[in-house]
């Protein structure tokens, strides 16, 4: 049920990947593992869309390229992503774009792997957003390098000991996968890659105006937390009153009845949380709701 993370990774590191970990079953996700241990099922990339070409006769399959300071991502978008394919085809190149997409690996012969990205979402962005993304990707790459260094210090690199140092679980798993697959990972090469990306920003940075820190948007207190309209809350409350015995009513039963009444689980849960916040219902024991 866990949603796959959108990794921040430079094109060069991504294209260096020669390891794909395939999921067992149909629904099991597959991952492209980079030499720095990014365990990628989904990526978030921002760069320059340099070209788009039709590679099928009906024009339903597009190949595009997105460039960052280190290299080029190859993007394939087809008829199974009609919205994205359409959006992509409407962009005039060159343009700054942000793409969220799934990792793809193609292995024409053993040991030779071509990685690409199948987009889920694409939008045009401004240069500032692109530059911000370069910095973010530098930070994430740096964290992978540091985690890799820590892992290599262990006599028997393993996920558990690495996780204890405070790194995210997925990264630890990716790093252990990478250590097993890639021989003599050249970390200095990736440190240089980050420097390269940062230096790319320096001349641009000179011209950039100083940006104000943050723009505050805060909700007015009068409408505080009013996410669920009162009507739904009232309906949920009526349902609880209907069902409850002196000891309250199990959570599951409320959700089930709400469902029957046409309130989906999301809404019902929101309403319950809100009712609890207001002190109208509360939880006398684990998983049991009771009106006050």
């Amino acid at each position, binding site marked *: *049920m*866990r949603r796959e*993370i*959108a990794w921040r990774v430079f094109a060069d590191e991504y294209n260096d990947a020669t390891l794909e970990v395939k999921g067992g079953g149909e629904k099991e996700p597959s991952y492209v593992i980079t030499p720095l241990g990014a365990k990628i099922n989904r990526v*978030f990339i*921002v760069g320059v869309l340099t070209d788009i070409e039709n590679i099928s006769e009906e024009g339903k399959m597009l190949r595009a390229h997105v460039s960052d300071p280190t290299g080029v991502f190859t993007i394939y978008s087809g008829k199974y992503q009609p919205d994205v394919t359409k959006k992509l085809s409407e962009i005039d190149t060159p343009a700054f774009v*942000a793409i*969220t997409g799934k990792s793809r690996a193609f292995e024409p012969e053993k040991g030779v792997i071509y990685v690409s990205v199948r987009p889920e*979402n694409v*939008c045009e962005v401004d240069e*500032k*957003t692109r530059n*911000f993304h370069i*910095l*973010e990707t530098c930070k994430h790459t740096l964290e992978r390098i540091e985690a890799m260094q820590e892992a290599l210090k*262990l*006599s028997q690199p*393993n996920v*558990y*000991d690495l996780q204890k140092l405070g790194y*995210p*679980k*997925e*990264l630890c798993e990716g790093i252990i996968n990478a250590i097993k697959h890639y021989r003599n990972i050249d*970390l*200095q090469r990736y*440190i240089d890659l980050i*420097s390269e990306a*940062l230096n790319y*920003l*320096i001349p*641009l*940075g*000179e011209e*950039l105006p100083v*940006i*104000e*820190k*943050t*723009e505050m*948007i805060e*909700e007015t207190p009068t*409408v505080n*937390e009013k*996410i669920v309209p009162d*009507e739904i809350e009232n*309906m949920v409350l009526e349902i609880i009153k209907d069902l409850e015995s*002196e*000891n309250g009513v199990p959570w*599951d039963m409320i959700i089930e009845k709400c469902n029957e009444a*046409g309130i989906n*689980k*999301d809404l019902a*849960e*929101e309403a319950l949380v809100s009712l609890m916040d207001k*002190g109208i219902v*509360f*939880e*006398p024991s*684990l998983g049991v709701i009771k009106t006050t």
Partner: protein
Amino acid sequence: MTSNDNKEISSHIEDITKALGDKIGKEVTVDELEKQLQKFLEYGVPIQQAKKTIIRKYGSDTSAGIKRKLLKELKPSESNVNIIGRVITVNPKEIELKGEKKRIFYGMIADESTVLPFTAWRDFNIEKGQVIQVTNAYTKPWQGIPQLNFGEYTKVEPSKEEIPGTQEIKRCKVDELKSGLGSVEIVAKILSVKEKEVDVGGKKKKVYFGIIADETGKAQFTSWHDFNLKEGEVARITGGYVKSWRGIPQLTFDEKCKVEKMSSKEIKEVNIKKYRLWELVEKGGALDVEVEGNVIEIKDGSGVIVRCPQCNRVLFDGKCKIHGSVKGIYDLRAKIVLDDGTGAVNVIINRALTEKILDKNLDELKKLYDESEDKVNDLIRDTLLAKKIKVVGNALRNGFGTTILARKIDKVEIDIKEETKRLLQEVREVSTSYET
């Protein structure tokens, strides 16, 4: 972190194999030991406790060959369950079963791995605080976790076993409270307190609940005893245990716990806890958190929606599923996926916040919507997609992962030049440390 914590798994396995001696290879292989140890550690059992438990499991020939299970290992529908645990709470309850009045007992039981609810279908003379050995119990699913049931064929005996981790008091900060922790001690400020009357086993009882906080974050509390806690006071609460509701930790305590009022200087400030998203997802939920990430998806159901005035259902083509064609009420919301490269959560942005982010009120958006439904969604996409934002709100766990109900949203912007310089410096440091 102690030096033991830093020891690697292999050395711990060595300790265990030494302790078990000739049992290795006969009753258990080193591989199996390693797997079990890994499992305990994944469950967050401290290494020393995990080792003790494994050594006890294979090392002693007591309990006539009955294999004891850890509570955390139990599945929601298991029979013939044998466990040892400390009773954390036990309460009687009158129920009617097939027209007959019956007195049953329910409560919470803990071992070194977790805390689970139990129901005893007859009187086993179970007392709070007691360590009991339970033979031939069964489990039922309850809220997605197993609930232990002690029935007609179950044996419940007092045990002299020491259950590590269930008695010694653990000092912790609010952000360390997590479901399953027992015997915690915490110094926290009471941010709010309310009282309620509830029925417990046919008797009216007052319960006090609210929010506690320290400099690491906020959590809910429930007290089954009147400690005369007042808003703004700082108290040291000793002996409580933690359950969670939708992933939000809830400290629960009663008259057997100790509550001391402290100087309000003990808690200098109450902060909103900042999380990286993987940490929040791992934790499940929390009250009042702050996170940052990029908006990588605008989900269906975002934008202007029209609700039935009678039942609040969202209308499709101007029609309510129940009430047919009605004059709908307009509402607005945005549902997004926020991702920081380490984890992802859903964020629900209510009408007022969405209006502010889009810099348009619902009336203006309504006009756009009436021209074309897509126009509002395009506006949301253009405003939010790929942008980095900071979100403050309550994080709740549900079947889809973690959802934050946004209370506050800021755009995150940085000084690119300054940040570039700072990172270049950092890279140089990594570079030199790597070369040496």
